Structures are given as structure tokens and as C-alpha cells.
């Protein structure tokens, strides 16, 4: 059932077997997995069923460098469904190499291999409504699918791995009915956790303090607790509770909040492909089960090892929108539509760059030069994205000149200096606010620059075309829009050694026998992959641990 804090009297004590904090991708996935398990589950959500500015404002904080990281109340949503209410829906699993300890990636290595998550990926895939767990073209189609570039097989990259796309599914809207109907699940809205109360020895979580913005106070007593509040908020909650452990819960060795990773992403270069137009395909295909999928170029794992660089993928992309020199009516239309595109998506479309009047006029001129193209594109986006329940995932512009840019998404190395911490400011509930100090390393720059160089070599070698890019500008391009928004990883990393990790291999906080973390905060490394699918698989694994008494 779905309740509100106002359904309880002030001071009421809620009891349950398991209490999950946060009704986003991880929390809702866990609750769904625990339906009819015989376990009494309490799922606490800070927000309501819709967007509420007061609840969202609790996420406000500061960033060390505004050029490098978006404000903490952006790219995450404090409401039922969490950030699945705004996510883009791009899904792919981590690669086996991501779990390995690699001597060329400092602090790398998960305490298990991909085989620990493999049993949970297919179900995670179903929950995000991305169809079958089939992430290569050969697995996804029982017929030959269009190659990215016909007959092209680069030495250092594969082009048969796929991205699959969720609707994008809003977990609150999609699965609320199941949580409402479940007799063993109680969702409580407007329930903000403000205190985690340990026993005197600091080894067991006794209770939680819960407050609403309207002043209602409750307590929660559960046998086991799971923090599933997101990659930034999980760290904030643990750091903010210092009455028993002076540095915060799970932080005796100053690991909590450190190793903060996003992804390194950017758009570079001009790739001219010397092949017939029909031999090149960089758009979406649709599988029989109706899922949009798209090929990408993925740096082969053996090449990563041989080159000593991180994981990396790249997509063929349209030229940068802001520069009207592309003379493309559709791209200019997107520039002109910047005011109606949400911040989270507009940032990488427009980069917040201010444009002078002349630039605006040149974009208008581009639109005027191709009104039919612009109108057809607008109609496609209206019918296949705005109106569609399964949305066309992104903007695809077919270049009539076979000219593309490269859109890359790269692993970021774990770095203890990249961190989140608490400030002296407090939110409306008295909780200390977060400060984000995201940093990248020379290793990150190295991964991008060497991966692009390898691709450039492949292109030259195979004579498929020509890639022009300015190697000296790569670092600027990979940080042009700062850290990739919405991917908040590593702040409470997983490991076997409490001196270098916050949770163990089963996601239990070291030294606390009944406190678990769900979500991407536990990821020791970031992969090239978007994190949602993997964090859901990890959450399902934890839910099964809870069900089967392993946790």
C-alpha cells in the first residue's frame, strides 16, 4: 500500500522486517522483488507522487567548480520513482573487464566478477522494459541487422555491441500499482530520514528518525535497513550521522564520499566516411519486442589491457549544434528550441553557451534553408517522442555528406581526491548540505586521447574515411560540459578491506551488522556503461540476499 506520513500520529513508531530508504530505481526494484516474500517491507520516500519544489530543494548543495559539475539538485529527483522520472533510458550491462583489478587503473577491482550479477541482469532488463537481455546484434536479432559501416572491421574496436533503451520507464508510474496492491509492502511518502541511530557499540542500526517538511516526526524500527537514496544522498546520510562514529557511519578510514566518479563524455572531431551513404548506419534499430537499440564502437578489452587504458565506447554523432556552420536545418531548429528543452538534456545540446544575435540569425537562416527537413524532423519527434509511450531515444541526423562527429563515453578512474563532503549549511530539515568536488585525472585524459588515437588509426588503416580532430583540445572537449550528469558513482565503494571500502561484497556496511546500501554509490569502478541497469541488478541481488536470509 502507499501511505503518507500524515497517516500516522506524531511520534509513531513504524516497525518492519526490512526498511528501504528511497523509492527510486534501486528501492522500487527491491520492493518489487520482496513482494509476497513473507518479509514485511517499509519503503520510505522523501517526496510525494509528483514533483514538489520543497522536497527537491532538500537536494541543494554546492559544487567546488561549477564548470566541472552540475548543481547537486540537478539530474536527480526527490520524489516517488526517483530519478527514473527524468532519466534517458540508455541501458547496457558492465563488461567482464570492469570487475577486474587492473594494475593500470588505480583502485580498480570489484570483490566479484560479472557472474555474480549475471543472474540478475535479465530481470533488471525486464524492469526497465528494455526487452530481452541481448546486447549484441547477433543475440538481439534472428536476422542480419544493418552494420554500422558495411564490411568494416576495425582492429581495436567492435561494432556489434548494442545499447538498448528503456521507454524510459518511470518506476513510480509503472510499478506503483504493484506496490499499492502488495500486502507486505508499505510505501510511506514525505518521509525524510534525518537520523540513523546506532547502538552504543556502533555495530547495529537500532532505529531511524523520520521527519516530514510539515513537521511530523516518526521513528522506524526494523531488523534490517537498506539505504537506496542515490549515489550522492547515501553518502550524505552516512556522513551526517556522527553521534557514535565521529566521521560518520561506515567511515572509520575516511573512504566514505571519496572516489566519486561520473563518466567522461564529449563530442569531438569530424569523421568523413568514404563509403556510399547506404553503407553507413548510425541510427536506431528496433527489435522484434519493440525495443530501440543502437550499435556503438567499443574498445576491445584486450586492447584496453595492452594499452593500459580504461573502458571506452564511441557513437557516430551529429556535429555540434551550437555552431551554425553545420548548415543543417534540423540542428538549428534544436538550437532555437533550447528554451523548451529540459536542463538535463539541453546541457549537452547547447552547453549553456551564450550565443550572440548573429548566431541566432544564422541558425534561423539554416532552418529557412531546409524547412521541409525541419518540419519532418519536428513531426517525427512529436509523434515518436512527445506522444509515444516508448520514446524515440535521441536525436539522429542522417548526414548527407557522410560526415559525423564522435560522441564518446568513457570510464572514469576512481580517485580518492574526487569526493563529496558536508558543508556547514543545513537544509530545511537541519541536515548538512552536500559539497561536490568532482575531479578527473591524467589517467582519464589518457584513456580518451589514446582511445581516439586508436580509432583514428583504425580509420586510416582501413581507409574507410578520415578523422580530423585536434588532439591538443581533447581535454577541453571532454570537460566542456563537465562530469556526465546523473551518474553518481563510487562514494561508498564496495570491497573486502574496510580500510579501502565502505561496504562488503554483499553491500553491507563494514562493521554494522544490519545496514546495507543499494545503488551506484557502491560501484568500485565506473565502466563505460550507464549505471542504471547494473545498479538495479545489484539491488535485486541484495533483495534476494534479504529474502534468503543471507543478509
Amino acid at each position, binding site marked *: 500500500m502507499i501511505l503518507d506520513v500524515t497517516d500516522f500520529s506524531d511520534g509513531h513508531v513504524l516497525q518492519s522486517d526490512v526498511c528501504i530508504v528511497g523509492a527510486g530505481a534501486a528501492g522500487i526494484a527491491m520492493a518489487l522483488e520482496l513482494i*509476497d516474500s513473507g518479509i514485511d517491507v517499509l519503503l520510505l520516500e522523501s517526496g510525494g507522487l509528483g514533483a514538489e519544489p520543497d522536497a527537491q530543494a532538500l537536494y541543494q548543495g554546492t559544487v567546488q567548480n561549477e564548470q566541472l559539475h552540475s548543481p547537486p539538485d540537478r539530474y536527480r529527483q526527490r520524489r516517488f520513482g526517483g530519478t527514473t522520472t527524468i532519466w534517458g533510458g540508455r541501458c547496457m550491462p558492465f563488461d567482464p573487464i570492469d570487475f577486474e583489478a587492473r594494475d593500470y587503473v588505480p583502485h580498480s577491482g570489484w570483490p566479484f566478477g560479472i557472474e555474480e550479477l549475471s543472474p540478475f541482469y535479465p530481470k533488471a532488463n525486464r524492469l526497465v*522494459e528494455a526487452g530481452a537481455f541481448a546486447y549484441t546484434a547477433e543475440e538481439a536479432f534472428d536476422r542480419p541487422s544493418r552494420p554500422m559501416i558495411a564490411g568494416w572491421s576495425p582492429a581495436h574496436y567492435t561494432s556489434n555491441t548494442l545499447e538498448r533503451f528503456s*521507454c524510459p520507464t518511470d518506476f513510480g*508510474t*509503472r*510499478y*506503483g*500499482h*504493484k506496490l499499492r*496492491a502488495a500486502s507486505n509492502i508499505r510505501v510511506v511518502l514525505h518521509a525524510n530520514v534525518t537520523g540513523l541511530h546506532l547502538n552504543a557499540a556502533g555495530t547495529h542500526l537500532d532505529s531511524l528518525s523520520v521527519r516530514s517538511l510539515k513537521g511530523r516526526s516518526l521513528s522506524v524500527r526494523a531488523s534490517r535497513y537498506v539505504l537506496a537514496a542515490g549515489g550522492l544522498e547515501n553518502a550524505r546520510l552516512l556522513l551526517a550521522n556522527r553521534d557514535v562514529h565521529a566521521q560518520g557511519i561506515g567511515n572509520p578510514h575516511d573512504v566514505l564520499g571519496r572516489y566519486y566518479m561520473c563518466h567522461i563524455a564529449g563530442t569531438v572531431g569530424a569523421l568523413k566516411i568514404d563509403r556510399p551513404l547506404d553503407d553507413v548506419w548510425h541510427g536506431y534499430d*528496433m*527489435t*522484434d*519486442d*519493440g*525495443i530501440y537499440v543502437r550499435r556503438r564502437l567499443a574498445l576491445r578489452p584486450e586492447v584496453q589491457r595492452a594499452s593500459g587504458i580504461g573502458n571506452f565506447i564511441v557513437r557516430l554523432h551529429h556535429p555540434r549544434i551550437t555552431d551554425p556552420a553545420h548548415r543543417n536545418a534540423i540542428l538549428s531548429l534544436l538550437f532555437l528550441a533550447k528554451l523548451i528543452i529540459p536542463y538535463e538534456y539541453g546541457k549537452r545540446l547547447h552547453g549553456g553557451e551564450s550565443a550572440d544575435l548573429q548566431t541566432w540569425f544564422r541558425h534561423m537562416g539554416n532552418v529557412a534553408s531546409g524547412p521541409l527537413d525541419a518540419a519532418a524532423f519536428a513531426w517525427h519527434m512529436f509523434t515518436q517522442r512527445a*506522444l*509515444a*509511450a*516508448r520514446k524515440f531515444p535521441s536525436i539522429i541526423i542522417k548526414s548527407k555528406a557522410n560526415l559525423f562527429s564522435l560522441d564518446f563515453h568513457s570510464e572514469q578512474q576512481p580517485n580518492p581526491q574526487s569526493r563529496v563532503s558536508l558543508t556547514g549549511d543545513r537544509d530545511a530539515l537541519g541536515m548538512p548540505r552536500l559539497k561536490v568536488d568532482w575531479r578527473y585525472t591524467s589517467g582519464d585524459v589518457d584513456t580518451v586521447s589514446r582511445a581516439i588515437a586508436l580509432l583514428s588509426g583504425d580509420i586510416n588503416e582501413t581507409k574507410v574515411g578520415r578523422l580530423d580532430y585536434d588532439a591538443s583540445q581533447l581535454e577541453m572537449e571532454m570537460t566542456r560540459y563537465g562530469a556526465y550528469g546523473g551518474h553518481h558513482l563510487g562514494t561508498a565503494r564496495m570491497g573486502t578491506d574496510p580500510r579501502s571500502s565502505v561496504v562488503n561484497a554483499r553491500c553491507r556496511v563494514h562493521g554494522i551488522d544490519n545496514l546495507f546500501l543499494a545503488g551506484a554509490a557502491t560501484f568500485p569502478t565506473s565502466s563505460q556503461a550507464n549505471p542504471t541497469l547494473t545498479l538495479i541488478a545489484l539491488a535485486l541481488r541484495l533483495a534476494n540476499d534479504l529474502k534468503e536470509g543471507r543478509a
Partner: protein
Amino acid sequence: MGAAGFIGRRVVAALSASDWAAAVAASRRTGGAADAVVVDATDEASLGAAFSGIDGIVNCVAGDGDTIRRNADAVFGAASRLNQPPRIVHLGSMAAYGSAVGRVDETAPLLGDLDEYSKAKAAADVRALAYPAAVILRPGIVYGPQSPWWSDRIARLLMAHRLGDLGARGDGYCNLVHVDDVARSVLLALRTPAAGQAFNVAMPSPPTWNEYFQRYARALRAVPLRRISARRLAVELRIVAPACKLLEIGARLAGARSAALPPPIRPWLLKLCAHEIILDVAKAQTVLGMQWMPLDAGLQSAADWFRGGGRT
């Protein structure tokens, strides 16, 4: 009884193929290879004459709520008056359980609270249970070649991409059972010593309706499956369904076949697609010895029939 209907025809065929039964096909109209009699299934006197000398009766009569009630009264009334009340296998429906959710076995109350059909099916089961030699079979969604709703109209809706992945609206369980499995369960029920009992008849781990649409669409090659938005379903219910009704009336007035018209999506279908009920079929497996046709094979048989020009 009801031998000319979708299930009745299969039961007659299965009986005729057995080495222990001679089938007499009873229906409103004559036809078929087996011995046939014309009966009014709601008339006790007519049935009394037809039942004479019959060892077992299979009641497959379908219809609206009133027909279902009157049929049950007539069948069990007529049979009760015979010196040796014969075995009656009565085809009930999962609809008798009404709005029950979760795993439902045969001991669950017959709520019959969904609509008039569900109420009548529950009432008919109560009537059947009062008859000492009855075996009640409660099938789920009976599909297979010639299934008018579940293999024909659904196929047409999938081919037209008017049905597909319904999201949360298709999370209900689709308790499919192939018509050949139903026929087999009838034959087993005729000979089981377990009289006076009911049996759920459906595949043991049913797919959701979304999964059913996906797998059937694949078998039909009606792919890619489309995600159907709430907005589109609202248009189906408020605009397309009334338009289909008007067309149907027009076709009837013109003397044309209404079966060729585009099928409407009705509110009861959407309610069913969201209904999270799973029939527990353990009893049919252990007592009757039922085994089930694998879903993919069953769907392929339905798709082959449909693609071969099928129609009921």
C-alpha cells in the same frame, strides 16, 4: 452439449478419436461427423429426452448470463430425474472466481463479482456442485486454432498494431490453456472417480498479458511489437469501439458478415489484462493427470491457423 462451439467441436473430435466413447454431438443446429442431435440446451424437457441412454454428458454450452443460468438449471434438472444420473463434465470458467487475485485454487470462494457473465458462471458452478456426479472444469483463457477471441481477434489486433505492450495495464496474468488441453481434460474428467469436484484448467506458470501479446505477435510475425500508450487505449475505447459497433450494426442490417470487420477493444478485455490472478492447477495435474502443451507450440499452432486464413 454445445458441440458446435469452439470447445465443443474439439471435445467431440477427441471423444470420437478415443477407443472408449461414441460421441453424440448435441447443439442448436446439426452438423459434424459424429451422431448429432438438435436440442434446446435451456429446455429441461428437450434435454430429458436427449439424455436417455447417455453415459456421460459434457456441457460446453456458452452464451450470455441468462443462457448460462437457464442451461445449468435445465441440464442438471433433466439429469437428476434419470434413474442413473450420468456423469456430467461441466465447463465452467475462471470468471467464477470474480475479482480474486493471487494464486487461486479450487477451494477459493466463487465471488462472481466481475460482471453478469462472471456472476452467471459462479451460479452455474453452484448448481453443478449440487449434482452428485458432476465434475466442473474451470478453464482460463482457452486459445488455439478457431478460438474466436484469443487467437483470432487478438491476432487481428496484433497484426494491426492496435494491441501490444500495454505497460502496467498488461501486468495481469494470462491463464492460457490450449483448446486441445481442455478437450483432454474433459476426457480425463469423464473417467475420473473424483466426482463432485472442480478443477482449474490452465498452464501452470502463465505469462503476463504483455508477454502473451509479445510471444503471439512473434509467432504471427506481427513484429515489432508496439507499446500502446494510455492515450491510445482511451481513443480505442471512446472512439474506435463505438465506431466498430456502428459498423457492426450497419453490416448486420446490410446482411454482411460482421466477423470481417475490425474488432473493437472492449473495457472488459483491458480489465482482464490487468487482473493479477493465477489459477492453481496442481489438482488437475495430480488428480486428473493433466499435462500441458508448451506455450510456444500452442501459440505456433494458433498462429499457423490464423496465417492460413483461419476465422472461426
